[in-house]
C-alpha cells in the first residue's frame, strides 16, 4: 500500500445562477472555515450566470486563505487577456488564484461570438493546451526581480529580465511580454478535468490539479496512474500533480441517508460534476477516507447539489469528522494555494540557471 499522502479537499460554489456577491462570499468563507484547499466557480457562455473570475475577484478581499479557482474558457477568449486576468486574480488574492481550463464546444456558443465555427473537442483541447502554455509563458515573462527602481540609472525595470514569449500556436500567436508582472505564486494553479480524452492529454501536460470523474476507487486510481504516466512522458515529475476525485454530493435532509454511498443506479452514474453521491455527511467522510487510504486519489473536489445546504453539511459534518480523525488539517498552514496543495513555487523558465522541467521549457 502506498504511504498516505496529505488529503486535499475542494468545493464548487456555483449553483443556480445568482448575481449577488454576498452569496458567493458566504460560501467561500464557509469553505475557508473548513480549511479546504480551494473553491471553484464553474462558468460557461452557454447558460445564465455571472463571469466567474470577476465573482471570485470580488470574493478575494473578503477572504484570507482559501484558494479561488474560476473556470475560464479558452475557445472564444483571447489568450493574452485570459493570462492577464488570472495573474491579476493572483495579485488581488495575494497568491490564492487558480484557473480551471475549459473549452466551448457548441455551435450556440460559437454564434455568440461569430468569429469561428464550432470545432471538435479534440481540436479545442489541443488549443486549450496551447492557451495554458502561452499563459504560463506570459506569467514567466517577467522574472521575479525585473522591477529594480534603480534611481542611479533612472531605470524602473531591468529590461533584460523581461522576455518576449513569441508563442506560435495553431490558432493564435502572442508576442509578449505580459502586461502584468509575474504573479505572487509564480504561476497560478492550473486545474483541468482530465476524465475524457483529449482533455486528459492537456491535463497531463499542463495541469497542476487534475479532476477525475469515476465511480469506483479502482477506476479512479487507474486514471490517476495514467495521468501520472503521461505527465512523466512530458518530462514532468508526477509528484507535482494532484489528482482529485470529483463527486457531486447530495447530503439530503437527513444526518444519515437510508442508502448511503454512491448511487450509480438511482442517480446519473456520472453527473456533469462527478460521480453522484447521496447520503449523510458521516458516510461521505467514510468514503473519502476509504478512497484516500486506498491510494486512489490525492483528494476530492465536491460539488454540492444545493451549495447553501450541502456545503454547510460538508464543512461542519464531513470535514469536521475527517479533522477529528486527523485525516485532514484544521487550519491553513500557508498563505498561497500552492502551499495548501504542497506544490512548490515554480522557478521562472527564463531565469538563468533555472531548473527546467518537462517539454514546457
Amino acid at each position, binding site marked *: 500500500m502506498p504511504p498516505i499522502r496529505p488529503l486535499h479537499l475542494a468545493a464548487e460554489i456555483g449553483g443556480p445562477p445568482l448575481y449577488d*456577491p454576498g452569496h458567493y462570499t458566504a460560501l467561500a468563507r464557509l469553505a475557508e472555515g473548513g480549511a479546504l484547499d480551494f473553491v471553484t466557480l464553474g462558468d460557461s457562455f452557454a447558460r445564465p450566470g455571472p463571469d466567474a473570475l470577476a465573482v471570485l475577484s470580488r470574493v478575494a478581499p473578503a477572504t484570507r486563505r482559501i484558494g479561488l479557482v474560476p473556470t475560464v474558457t479558452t475557445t472564444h477568449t483571447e489568450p493574452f*487577456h485570459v493570462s492577464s486576468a488570472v495573474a491579476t486574480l493572483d495579485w*488581488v488574492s495575494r497568491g490564492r488564484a487558480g484557473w480551471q481550463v475549459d473549452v466551448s464546444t457548441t455551435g450556440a456558443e460559437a*454564434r455568440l461570438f461569430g468569429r469561428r465555427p464550432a470545432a471538435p473537442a479534440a481540436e479545442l483541447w489541443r488549443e486549450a493546451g496551447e492557451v495554458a502554455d502561452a499563459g504560463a509563458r506570459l506569467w514567466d515573462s517577467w522574472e521575479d526581480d525585473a522591477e529594480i*527602481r534603480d534611481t542611479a540609472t*533612472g531605470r524602473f525595470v531591468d529590461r533584460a529580465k523581461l522576455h518576449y514569449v513569441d508563442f506560435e500556436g495553431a490558432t493564435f500567436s502572442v508576442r509578449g511580454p505580459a502586461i*502584468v508582472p509575474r504573479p505572487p505564486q509564480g504561476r497560478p494553479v492550473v486545474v483541468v478535468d482530465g476524465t475524457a480524452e483529449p482533455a486528459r492529454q492537456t491535463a497531463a501536460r499542463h495541469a497542476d490539479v487534475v479532476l477525475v470523474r469515476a465511480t469506483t476507487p479502482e477506476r479512479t486510481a487507474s486514471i490517476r496512474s495514467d495521468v501520472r504516466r503521461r505527465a512523466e512522458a512530458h518530462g514532468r515529475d508526477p509528484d507535482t500533480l494532484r489528482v482529485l476525485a470529483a463527486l457531486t454530493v447530495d447530503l439530503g435532509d437527513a444526518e444519515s441517508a437510508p442508502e448511503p454511498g454512491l448511487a450509480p443506479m438511482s442517480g446519473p452514474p456520472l453527473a456533469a460534476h462527478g460521480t453522484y453521491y447521496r447520503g449523510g455527511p458521516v458516510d461521505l467522510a467514510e468514503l473519502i477516507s476509504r478512497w484516500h487510504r486506498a491510494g486512489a486519489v490525492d483528494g476530492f473536489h465536491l460539488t454540492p447539489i444545493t451549495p447553501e445546504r450541502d456545503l454547510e453539511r460538508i464543512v461542519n459534518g464531513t470535514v469536521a469528522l475527517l479533522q477529528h480523525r486527523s485525516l485532514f488539517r484544521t487550519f491553513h498552514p500557508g498563505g498561497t494555494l500552492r502551499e495548501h496543495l504542497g506544490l512548490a513555487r515554480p522557478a521562472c523558465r527564463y531565469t538563468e540557471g533555472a531548473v527546467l522541467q518537462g517539454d514546457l521549457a
Partner: protein
Amino acid sequence: MTTAPKPTTAPKQMHLAAHFPGVNSTTVWADPRSDSQIDFSSFEHLARTAERGLFDFFFLAEGLRLREHNGLIHDLDVVGRPESLTVLSALAAVTDRLGLAATVNATFNEPFELARRLATLDHLSAGRAGWNVVTSSDAFTGENFRRGGYLDRARRYTRAAEFVATARELWDSWTPDGTPRRFVHHGEHFRVEGEFTVPRPPQGHPVVIQAGDSPEGREFAASAADVIFTRHGTLEAGRAFCADVKGRLAKYGREPDALKIMPGVGFVLGDTDAEAREKASLIRLQQVSPQNAMLALEQVWGRDLSSYDPDGPLPESDPVPDSELAQGRVRHGDPLAVAARWRALSREKGLSVRQTVIEATARQSFVGSARTVAAELAEFVAAGAADGFVLVPHLTPGGLDDFVDEVVPLLQERGVFRSAYHGSTLRSHLGLAEPVWKG
C-alpha cells in the same frame, strides 16, 4: 481671461474622478513615498481615499503591450499593471459608493464577452461600473491577439460604435423582470446571436466613457458616450473643446448635460502658492529626467538622437513622419507641428531640450495652495471649460490624500461639490438618466 458668471441659482456641481497613476512618466517612482503599482493594497488605498472624498469614480487606464523605444522595452517609467476589470471587481468589495471605471479596448475584444464582464461588474458593485472605450488598433499591439493586425483610423471608430451598440443590445436583451430573450445582431463588424447570460445591469447600462480627440473620436463620443475623458486641461482649450463636443449632441437628440466632460489634470498643493510652485518644478524635474527628455525628443523626431545633449538645443532638422521608433504610445498630433511648437517655445524662452520637454508636456494644470486650487477648479467649471476632472496624482498610492483632506472641504464650502453621496450608482453620481429599456 474669462471670469465666472455670477451664479443666479445654486452653483454648478463638479464631478471628480481619481486616476490610478500608472504606466507613464507622471508617476514619480523614485520618491520614497512611492509604493507598489501592482499590490492590491495600493489600489485599495487610492480607492478608499477617493471614496472618502466622495468622488464620482475611480479610473484605470489600459495598455496591452509594453512600450518600446528604438526596439527596446521602455524601462524609465513605471511598467506593469494588473488587468482592470479584475482589480475593479475586487475593489467593489472594499468600497460602497465609488464608481469603478475600466479602460478596455474595443479593437481587441468581442462584444459578448466584454458586455458580460461589464454587466457582471455592475452587478457585483450594485451599479457602479464604467467603461472607457479606447480604440488604439496598431499592429504592434495586435501582435498579442488572435486577430493580430490593425484597423485603419476610420474603421476603429466604426467598430467601437458598433461594439457599444451591440453591448447595449445585449444589456437590454433581458426583460427588466429578469427573463432572458434571444437577440440577434448582424452588423458590419459583428454577427452575434443567442442568449445573454447576465440580467440587465443595475444601472441599465454601465456608464460609457470615451477618450480620443480626433473628429471621429468626438463624433463617436457625441453619439454614444456618457463621459469624455480628455486632455484639454487649460481654460481656453477646455472651453473650445466643450463647445465643440456639446455642439455635436443635438443631432443625436441629446441634451448638452447628457455628456460630462472631464479633463485629466495634474495638481500640486503647497501651504502657499509659492511653495506649491516650487514643489511643482521639482516634480517636473523628477518626471522629466535627462533620459526621459531625450526619449520624448526622439519620440517627436522619430529617430535616434543619442548624440544630442539634453541640456543643449533642439535639433535643427525636421522630424521623420510615420516613424516606428516609439511603439505602444498614443501619439499626440502631427510630429512636424509638435516640433515647430517646441522650437518656437525653446527659441522664445531660451530653453534646453530638457527644459522644453518640461514646459511643453506639463499637465500640472492646478498648482497652488488648497484655496487657490479649489478656486481655480471651481472657475473652470463655472466658465464652461469642464464638467469636472479626472485627477492624476504623481504618487502611488498616497497622491490623493492631501487633495481629499484639503481641497474637497473647500469645494464643499463653495457649494460646488457634494457633501454626501445622494445615490448609490455611478449614474446617479454623474446625474445621468437611467437608459430606457429597449427590449
